[in-house]
């Protein structure tokens, strides 16, 4: 009896100690909220913390600032048409494959710079934009000069659901941009062979798919193998200045480098005001396989993308 009372007392003490410890550990957290003079807007959405930071003329959208995430998108408030990020500019290499898009789908709005530029270049094109986070849409409108034109329609929805439904409705797009990845988390259901097959279904025969993806880690191999399994040939577009790579692919045969160059020359003047150095792009767009072909294809059954990103595993 004595022993069990002793035991109960020890248990109670341990619980009390744990409670005290928890409180003590939480206190500094309350004060560690990183306050910076440049933060102009903060909001917590269903999916993440959204912070808008201004540094001189440069205004940036940051997700999850507390875990040190990098900028999602930036805009130069003095010259909003200029594209600040290299990967955003690189995504326009898709124009070299499909120079006259009429029906555009952009998955992932961010600050809205890709759709705004496309709308500016092709005012008559119909554009659907799908963004999962209502808060991102609100912030894009309020802080990043995103304005919806009459030919644009924004849907707040998971891109996978949107694409599946678009397929059912028989919608087709000739220019699809996948830009749905944030720095710290990959939506695993947007990387699988099945998803890419659904995307393939809504591409017109002359359409192009432009996907902003990662250029590092073991995950690179899995992703490349998966795209290859669906589309066969693809342009792997990397610049030394960027940690991103852009995958560009199509249902038809991809154009030869000479043709890319001719189109780049046609576009060079029109793309100058957005700061897009399109003439430099054809030389960097390679169809060569530089990934480990033996890696497993990602499927709805097997897609541990976030775990694979960790090189140590």
């Amino acid at each position, binding site marked *: 009896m004595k022993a069990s009372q002793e035991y109960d007392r020890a248990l109670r003490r341990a619980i009390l100690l744990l409670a005290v410890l928890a409180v003590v550990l939480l206190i500094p957290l309350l004060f560690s909220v990183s306050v910076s003079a440049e933060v102009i807007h903060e909001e917590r959405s*269903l999916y993440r913390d959204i912070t808008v930071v201004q540094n001189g003329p440069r205004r940036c959208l940051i997700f999850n600032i507390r875990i040190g995430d990098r900028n999602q998108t930036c805009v130069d408030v003095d010259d909003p048409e200029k594209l600040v990020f290299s990967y955003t500019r690189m995504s326009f290499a898709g124009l070299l494959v499909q120079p006259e898009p009429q029906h555009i789908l952009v998955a992932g709005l961010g600050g809205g710079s890709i759709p705004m530029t496309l709308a500016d270049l092709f005012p008559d094109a119909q554009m659907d934009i799908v963004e*999962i986070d209502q808060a991102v849409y609100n912030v894009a409108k309020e802080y990043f000069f995103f304005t919806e034109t009459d030919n644009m329609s924004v849907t707040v929805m*998971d891109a996978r659901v949107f694409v*599946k439904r678009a397929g059912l409705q028989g919608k087709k797009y000739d220019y699809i941009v996948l830009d749905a990845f944030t720095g710290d988390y990959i939506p*695993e*259901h947007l990387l699988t062979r099945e*998803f890419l097959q659904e995307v393939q279904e809504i591409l017109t025969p002359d359409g192009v798919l432009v996907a902003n993806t990662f250029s590092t880690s073991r995950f690179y191999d899995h992703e490349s193998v998966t795209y290859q399994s669906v589309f066969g040939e693809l342009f792997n577009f990397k610049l030394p200045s960027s940690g991103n790579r852009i995958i560009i692919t199509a249902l038809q045969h991809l154009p030869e480098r000479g043709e890319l160059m001719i189109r780049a020359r046609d576009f060079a003047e029109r793309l100058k005001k957005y700061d897009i150095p399109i003439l430099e792009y054809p030389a960097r767009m390679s169809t060569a396989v530089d990934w480990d072909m033996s890696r497993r294809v990602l*499927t709805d*059954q097997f897609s541990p993308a976030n*775990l694979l990103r960790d090189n140590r595993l």
Partner: protein
Amino acid sequence: MTPFHHTLLRMTVLCVAFVSGFCIMTIELLGGRILSPYFGSSVYVWGSIITVFMLSLSFGYLAGGRLSMRKPNPVTYALFFVSAAVLILPLVLFAEAIMEQVFLVIVDPRYGSLIASLMLFFIPTAILGMISPYSIRLLVRNEEHSGHIAGQLYFVSTMGSALGTLGTSFYFVLWFEVNFILWGVILTLIAAGTTVLAVYYLPQRTSTGVQQYES
């Protein structure tokens, strides 16, 4: 029934309760994977899954407790495991077809994911939920120790849930396909049910005299 046999049966019940906790959370975690191609991976998809699991477990507890009133015996107990295993089969074989129908009929992915979760997970999880109260009934010998026994049972089954969650999210999805893991769950549950039966029957057959499980 010999004291040794009793201890063995008790240990077996605790072990399989651990296994059931493990399997419940493995299925719940894979639920997100299974639904995401049709309904996305938004917070409401997880909301649907967790709602359905909580609902089915709560009804399972109720039913399991109720069943334990009528001649509690290890055979019924073993049947819970085997029938849960069988009822997970549709999840492996027909999940795609079921979700496709729901996707076609219900446009709002919130209700789509809720209905799909109900159809895919409710029945097997409710059966798995029946295991906990029934285990307690099999283990309890007297009123005085009932709280202690319940505590032990919650301990092992929730520990199983914790490890099932960890194992599935950290490792299984990295190593195996979703359906492969589900087949693993099915086989594990069948093995658990079989173990209960074996422990109950084998010593009876080898020992002499009338043996009645008198709990």
